[in-house]
């Protein structure tokens, strides 16, 4: 049986280990190739060395680089300019942030608690 995420290269930038482990295990079990970066700098470094089909990005990372800053740096870089980004966060989107999201070609914005893993896997399978 072909797994729904077979061949997908996913970069997960998430600082909490038990959260990132959970996502990694579930997505990997569905056939994805998951790389976990515990902070924004490492995430950006990984992206310089490897190509990813989709980036899952947490909003709160560390003090000097949050999710939005990572996104801005990605869009500024030729190699990651078009890479789909999905936000996975605990924060609801504020009104002024919607514009930022729209201007930076974000494929999705989800509150972690609101999106069960199977639903996320479905979404990732169709993200290009």
């Amino acid at each position: 049986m072909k797994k729904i995420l077979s061949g997908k290269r996913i970069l997960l930038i998430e600082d909490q280990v038990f959260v990132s482990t959970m996502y990694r295990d579930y997505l990997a079990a569905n056939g994805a190739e998951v790389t976990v970066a515990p902070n924004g700098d490492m995430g950006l470094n990984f992206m310089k060395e490897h190509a990813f089909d989709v980036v899952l990005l947490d909003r709160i990372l560390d003090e000097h680089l949050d999710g939005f800053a990572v996104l801005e740096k990605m869009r500024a870089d030729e190699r990651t300019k078009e890479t789909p980004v999905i936000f996975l966060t605990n924060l609801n989107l504020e009104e002024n942030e919607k514009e930022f999201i729209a201007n930076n070609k974000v494929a999705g914005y989800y509150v972690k608690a609101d999106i069960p893993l199977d639903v996320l896997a479905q979404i990732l399978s169709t993200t290009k």
Partner: protein
Amino acid sequence: MRPLRNIRIFFSILIVSALMVSLMAIPSIVTYTALQSNEQDAIEFDAHTVERMSSFSTFKDNFNRALINIFEYTQTGDETVAIRAETRIAALRTELEHFASLSASSEAEIGLANDLRRAYEYQIQSIHEFRSHYEEGASKEILYADLLGIRTARIQAEQTIHVEIDAQIREQRRMAVERIKEVERLFRIFFVVAFAIALLLSAVLALIIARLVSISVKQAKAFTERIAGGDLETVIPVSDKNEFGQLMTALESMRQSLKVMVDAKDDFIALISHQFRTPLTVLRGNVQIFELDKSGLTEAQKRSLDHVKTVTLGLVKLVDDILSVIKMNAKGLDPIETAPVDVSAVVGSVVEIVAAEALEKKVTVKHTIPNTPLPHPPLHERSLEQILVNLIENAVKYTGADVNSKPKREVEIRYRTTPDALEVAIADTGIGIPEQDQRRVFTKFFRASNVVIRMENGNGLGLLLVKHIVDRLGGTIRFESTENVGTTFYLTFPLKRSTLNPNSDHTSS
């Protein structure tokens, strides 16, 4: 309480006092007038009597002198004395005229005047007769008889005037007594009337005051009931400084401290809930990881995984609901954007969602769609779905609560259209909501007492959420329920979006 009411009480008392004073004043004035007129009468009477008496005494004096002159004349034959007698008789006539001219106001007085006049005339006439007899040289016997006649006439006149004056005095007394009696009678009537009116007015006043008191008490009661019903938002108005104002102030400060406590509790719960979210997400995610492949698990492990899953999903929903409720309570909520929605289609999809649970609990879900097409009220589909999931799930849950005791286990969804609204009724044959719990149905963490006893699952936030959402959609929700017979929830959605702010609409029963 408004200060106006105190002014009203004050004026009522003022009016009653004024009426009492006037009622007391009337008999006093009547008495005074009566006494005054008695006195006036007495003065007038005295004046008349004095005048008549003096007239009578002048007359008598002149008469006596005239008589003496005539005797003197008969003794001496002196013409000068005869002339003096003539003068006296003329004076008698003058006095007679004077007497006649005296005012005679009453019939008795006229009678007296006439009697006296006759007596005077008779006396004058007697003297004339005596004189003419004397001049004619009549016998001593005749002259003697004339003198006797004169004396008799004089006595008669004196008697007349005394009898008449006595009678008049008696009459005056009688009239005075009658006036006083009349005053007494009037006094009695006035006292009775005044007493009756005072009694009536006091009763009316007492009623008014009692009403004002009872209105205030009712108001205070309404506010305490609101607080008891969970409404801590409505500010209790305090406008008076009297005892009721103090009561209201006390109620208001009670409401404020309650609100502070409730808000603190809400904030605390919100904080805790946020802290719960991440671990719960991890818990749920890991359960899902286990479920991807259960082949390596023993039966016991599978069962415990199931339990972990059920409890985790319940907790996830609880935290979500708590956060939704707290969000809904926060001010400045964006209005929900609405579009025409096919309500029966949404109901249909929700019925499918609950189908499995209904089957498990042996509850029939009947969705009755009328033949004529239903109107599409302006709604928000996701919000409507949230409302319906809550209500229909509840209906199934509480109808299936007692597995064996109910012969009819049915949930029915039906519709009713009015010219300006669509009504959706969700009727169940479940355990019902006990009457004492009914007014708290749409409050936070409400669990009906009979539900708690039966240990049904539920977090007590569903109906509060439903109510909030219905309010925001501009609809209304009410219910009818009889314990152990069933509950029917009625959702009413207007076909035209109200221009009113939906947040201010709290119509529900």
